């Protein structure tokens, strides 16, 4: 396996007190190497979103160790975890999460705000480049409301690609799309993966997961490797 980007050792996540305790993740071990595309499949409530949030440093494990590119995330404070999110992790959500009152380019450049990226044409040039990469050349000045579902998701992917992250986390990226658009988006993710992007994708659809290079199954908070 290539140099690992994600390493989880005995990671558990519990919610609530002892009386009403919910174990969302139980003793999860996981390694994702650089350039891998891993799909995590599981039914609703199985813990796959919790796993994604931990991988994206939006949540912290109750126990266990999470190493991101060899760095122990538990040792980072709130501001450094935020720094990790804006510099090394890109998120793609099922609901797109685009700001509808901003243009496509402004949405794509949003993460630059928290990277303290220099102002000027550099930002816009980079945004145009990633928009071109996802096939949205000429859509920079549009409002998200004027775009189709597939185009919106491609804007979200472009936003995630700004800053060249080490890991692309996709939370049901095709959940709101029809089958034709689903294939387009999966093709785009596959293209990105081929260029070396590490992708972890959560889905409950097996045919979507089948596009990934490696599939994991999560059931009741425990993770299992699935055969090819």
């Amino acid at each position, binding site marked *: 396996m290539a140099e690992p*980007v994600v390493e989880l050792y005995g990671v558990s996540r519990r919610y609530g007190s002892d009386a009403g305790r919910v174990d969302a993740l139980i003793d999860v071990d996981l390694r994702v190497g650089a350039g891998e595309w891993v799909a995590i499949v599981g039914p609703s409530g199985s813990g796959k*979103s919790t796993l994604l*949030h931990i991988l*994206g440093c*939006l*949540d912290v494990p109750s126990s266990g160790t999470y190493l*991101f*590119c*060899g*760095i122990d995330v538990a040792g*980072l404070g*709130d*501001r*450094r975890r*935020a*720094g*990790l*999110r*804006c*510099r*090394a992790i890109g*998120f793609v*959500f099922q*609901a797109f*999460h685009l*700001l509808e*009152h*901003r243009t496509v380019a*402004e949405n794509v450049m*949003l*993460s630059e*705000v*928290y*990277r*303290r990226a220099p*102002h000027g044409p550099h930002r816009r040039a980079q945004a145009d480049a990633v928009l071109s990469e996802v096939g949205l050349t000429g859509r920079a000045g549009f409002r998200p409301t004027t775009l189709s579902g597939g185009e919106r998701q491609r804007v979200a992917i472009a*936003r995630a690609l700004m800053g*060249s992250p*080490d890991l692309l986390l996709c939370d049901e990226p095709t959940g709101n799309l029809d089958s034709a658009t689903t294939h387009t988006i999966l093709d785009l993710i596959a293209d990105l993966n081929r260029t070396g992007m590490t992708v972890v994708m959560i889905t409950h659809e097996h045919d979507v997961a089948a596009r990934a290079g490696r599939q994991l199954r999560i059931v009741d908070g425990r993770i299992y490797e699935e055969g090819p």
Partner: protein
Amino acid sequence: MSTAVAASGMSVRDLVNEALAGLFARPGRTVLTVLGTVVGLAALVATLGLSRTAGNQIVGRFDELAATEIQVKTKLPQGTPIPPGALPWDAPARLRRLAGVAAAGNLSTVNVGDALVSTSPIHDPQGRTEFKLTVLAASPGLFDAARATLGSGRTFDEGHSLRADRVAVLGPNAARQLGISAVDDLPALRIGDQLYLVTGILAGTARQADLLGAVIIPEGTARQEYRLASPELVEIETDIGATTLIANQVRDALRPDDPNTLRVAFPPEPKRVREAVKSDLDVLFLLLGGVSLLVGALGIANVTLVSVMERTGEIGLRRALGATRRHIAQQFLVESGAMGLVGGVVGASLGTLVIVAVSAHNTWTPVLDPLVPLAAPVVGALVGLISGTYPALRAAYLEPVDALRSA
């Protein structure tokens, strides 16, 4: 890893850009929210300015009337018979020689015993024809010193007093009681058995309200007919600004032999009175403006809180893109502060316009402390920041996972 783990950060320019974008995302709501602060601060600036402007008018009139009056009495307890010479008969003449005295006159209550005042007998068995009225004795200068105005006829003069003529001037209330409305027919009245010719009827008086219901006879007549021993008080009208100076000279002018027997009453220092009047008005109007501002602040707090709840998804997204709690709080604080600042600028302008318009309508001179319109935007921004603090903290402490999930 291609990136070092550095903390996320946000430049001031980006912070302002993001906050403005947030405000312009819902322009209608932003305008309505700002309107609350505009009304509050416009009311505050206008009330402060109008209180100063109106206060100046009130104080100006107060100065003119109250700050030019001096009364001189003896220090004897009220009701005690005043001995001869306690106040000189020629007090008005002595006082008029002082620079700054505009008018002076003596006034005394005449003891007429049980004598009633009546007019010509009218055969009306039901109506009263005799009245127990106050009879006052005045020197001719008193009418000017008391700023009495004539409704009919004329007042008496030095000649009437020197000759002890039986003439009288009636206060308007006394005239009404006696049924005398004009002096064209040379009406007469009786004090006891003595017949007096009515020469004039007063329309009103700015000082010495006792004159309104009294029969006023010349001092010389009172001395001869009723053995008036001494004037009871001396009423003095001074020029504006001369009150304190005259008050210090009055005792020596009237009783150089024993100045301490006299009590000189004059209004407090006009400057102090002006400050007191202004201060009372300011407190009242500040309170009104403050209430208006509080309403504006509650508006900002309410709308910002609603905005936080509506933008939960955006907050989650920003956290996912690298915003810290502090970045989220800062953005909402800048948004609410900007609303307050704009409200302050517009409110100060509107308030100033209101002052100018009201002053122009009443032909007053508009008076406004220049610091007030300059401070209004600062106050507005502070109000915005304070109002936005709670919503901003709520936004900052939203867990990103929950924020993303609830969007």
